[in-house]
């Protein structure tokens, strides 16, 4: 009868530290049992958003509905359902075992904790025999990060918020974390929201990835943002110096500090030096950083570094056959300055 209601609904959310607003989300819905990604540059508000969604503190303005009901920190309606892996893998001054069992204890769980704790350790690839009785300060960086994650997985939460779960974790473990995230969703119906700078990994895990920029969601999917200031050129166009003698050219911006948005699909990727002389087309040289296919659409994307910028470019299958795209390959990007949108 009822339409599935979003597990999170964020309305007119504003958060300030001191007086600077760092987050402003007008509206955001998250469906149950979905896996949502959050990307954005450092300081774009990812951690703040996740902490608000974990009800660790109150937003300055606006509200967060959980399961249709407005909730606040410590509310029993969310306390045992939502858990957040914070960005800093902070552990309590206890053994690894007690750190992981803490959440069970808090839930008044009186059973034997050995089994679930050992299972959780195994899920993050740590041998319980070696690690369960280590003290909190006897771990390497990545081990600590994984123990912190185990302390969340052991709770089988309805919502699992992960803030950079793969930072400082080795390749094998980040695959384990990917597997654990997917398993949580399929076995326990967990909803996940994951912030990460490892875009490959994130696009691999998530159903949908949202971009945060200066505290505002700027759309889902891959996109490029280039910040001003812009300097006028002689031909009516504007540009920004992005490296030694390399300029990024755009059409006239609404103001000198506007942010340019470039759809990955409007950029074409050419072999280095292949630049034609077609009119209205601008070229910029770069190097491929990585190539990846988007899980949902199957589209191929290349990350290309041009000067200090990293641009995402959609790659046509036809291109791929014609050129050898891989990390380190020099390419030239072609686009029409007037295909740029302004924020």
């Amino acid at each position, binding site marked *: 009868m009822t339409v599935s209601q979003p597990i999170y609904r964020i309305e007119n959310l504003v958060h300030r530290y001191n007086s600077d607003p760092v987050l402003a989300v007008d509206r955001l819905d998250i469906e149950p049992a979905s896996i949502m990604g959050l990307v954005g540059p450092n300081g774009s508000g990812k951690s703040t958003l996740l*902490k608000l969604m*974990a*009800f*660790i503190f109150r937003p300055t303005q606006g509200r967060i509905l959980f399961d249709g009901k407005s909730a606040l*920190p*410590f509310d029993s309606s969310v*306390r*045992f359902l*939502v*858990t*957040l*892996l*914070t960005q*800093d893998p*902070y*552990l*309590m*001054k206890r053994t690894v075992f007690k750190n992981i069992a*803490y*959440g069970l204890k*808090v*839930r008044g769980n009186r059973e034997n904790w050995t089994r679930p704790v050992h299972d959780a350790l195994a899920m993050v690839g740590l041998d319980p025999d070696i690690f369960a009785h280590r*003290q909190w300060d006897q771990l390497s960086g990545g081990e600590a990060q994984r123990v912190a994650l185990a*302390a*969340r997985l052991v*709770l089988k939460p309805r919502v699992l*918020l992960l803030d950079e779960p793969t930072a400082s974790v080795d390749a094998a473990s980040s695959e384990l974390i990917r597997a654990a995230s997917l398993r949580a969703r399929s076995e326990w119906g967990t909803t996940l929201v994951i912030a990460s700078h490892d875009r490959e990994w994130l696009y691999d895990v998530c159903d949908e990835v949202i971009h945060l920029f200066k505290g505002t969601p700027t759309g889902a999917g891959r996109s490029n943002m280039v910040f001003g200031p812009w300097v006028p050129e002689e031909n009516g166009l504007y540009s920004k110096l992005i490296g030694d003698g390399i300029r990024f050219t755009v059409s006239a911006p609404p103001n000198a500090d506007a942010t340019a948005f470039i759809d990955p699909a409007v950029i074409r990727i050419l072999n280095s030096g292949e630049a034609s002389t077609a009119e209205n087309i601008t070229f910029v040289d770069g190097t491929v950083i990585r190539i990846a296919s988007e899980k949902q659409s199957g589209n191929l994307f290349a990350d290309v570094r041009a000067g200090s910028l990293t641009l995402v470019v959609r790659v046509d299958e036809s291109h791929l056959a014609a050129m050898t795209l891989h990390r380190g390959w020099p390419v030239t990007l072609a686009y029409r300055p007037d295909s740029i949108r302004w924020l």
Partner: protein
Amino acid sequence: MDFILAGFIEAIRLLFSGDDQTWSAVGATLKASSGSMAASLTIGVPLGFALGYFQFPAKRQLRLLVDTALALPTVFIGLVVYAFISNRGPLGEMGLLFTLTGIAIGQTILALPVVIALSATAVESMDRHLRALLISLGASRRQLLFSSLWEVRYGVLAAGLTAYGRVMTEVGISMMVGGNIKWHTRTITTAIALETGKGMFSTGIALGLVLIAIAFGVNVCLSFLRKK
């Protein structure tokens, strides 16, 4: 000098020969100090937590007040408590004057600033990430309080031990409120003051050693809290 040595020997005699007066004073000291420590920890630790944990407008002023209260002279506290519980005072009806309960009340006032100031400092030294960790694992407000305190347990323990030292060794309150009445409210410290006043320096030393022995015992019992 020789009275120090004599004091050592006498301390052993007092403790092991079962001297009635000494044991009565030991009892009085333990009763009064246990009462005041229980009260000051129960009231002071949560207050100290609040003072160290939350941000609120008058925080700095409150902190200044508590720090100043660290310098409340015992005789002063003794006088004020006396004023209240003396037969002519507002609480005279309760018959607290010259009782161990009266002493414990005064000592609680003495210990409170120490407990509050030091546990607030301990809580302030807490890692700022702890709050997010505990809430994210589902802790209630109460569990947040207790788990946070457990994280800074050495600081809270130090607060308790410092307050205990202060309470155990104070004379002014016990004298003024308790009256140093033999067999009743004579504590070890008032006994030391008395013996010293009499010129019985070695007995004073001996009783001092008895007090230190008690403190040592209490510390040994608490030292399990220190193990990692």
